[in-house]
């Protein structure tokens, strides 16, 4: 499984993260998405374009409208890639919690 580097770059941006969480529950048009942001519509479109380029977002045509929806498979790939690191740190930190807890009680 090869993940292009720009996937991670794409999700590192706070606006793009917000877009992903908005469309996670329902497909949205570019206009309805843009209403959630203070930036210009062009700026939002640019973010969507980046997300679409790395397949995190898919387009759907419904009549005249274009809807964007999340590609859960791609999101899963990202999560899978990070999983070993997440496990490593969570394991470490659970133990660190215990160490700190013991320090407090001394």
């Amino acid at each position, binding site marked *: 499984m090869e993940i292009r580097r720009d996937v991670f770059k794409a999700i*590192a941006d706070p606006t793009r993260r917000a877009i992903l969480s908005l469309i996670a529950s329902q497909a949205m048009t570019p206009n309805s998405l843009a209403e959630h942001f203070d930036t210009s519509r062009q700026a939002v479109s640019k973010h969507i374009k980046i997300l679409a380029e790395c397949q995190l977002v898919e387009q759907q045509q419904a009549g005249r409208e274009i809807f964007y929806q999340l590609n859960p498979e791609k999101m899963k790939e990202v999560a899978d890639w990070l999983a070993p*690191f997440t*496990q490593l740190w969570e394991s470490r930190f659970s133990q660190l919690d215990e*160490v700190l807890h013991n320090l*407090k009680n001394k």
Partner: protein
Amino acid sequence: MENKTKITKSANRMVVLRNFDAPVPQVWRAWTDSELLDQWWAPKPYKARTQIMNFIEGGFWHYAMVGPETEEMWARFDYQSICVHDYFKGKDSFCDADGVKNEDDFPGMDWTNTFIESGEGTQVRVEITFKSEIDMEKIAKMGFIEGFTAAHQNLDHLLKSGAVR
């Protein structure tokens, strides 16, 4: 009370954020005192074992991660700059039992660990910069990290069941 670990990655940099329910001096101690580090640094079922610890600028921590079959993985953390109760920076490399670095396979990672007061507790920010994205992939694919998965789930169960604490 649940403190979540947040991990983000961009290009060759990884940032790990986590809150702890203890004041900065205690958390700092847990990160810089080898006796305490040995208790938590290695994810289960591994155990960290310190060989040498010299927590000063220019000093280093030489330690082994010892597995359940007593297999050893040696590493060292060279401290480059230290600002007490604030941050420390250094370089983490794999090495052998004598501390000789193995920089051919892994060129080492640059670390900045920052400790920020957050209410009654502490937020720790770990920033790891890999020499290249390829190195990062190598580390991600290393078996010993993958092996932690099952063990971690066990620990999670223990913590949730209240058996620990």
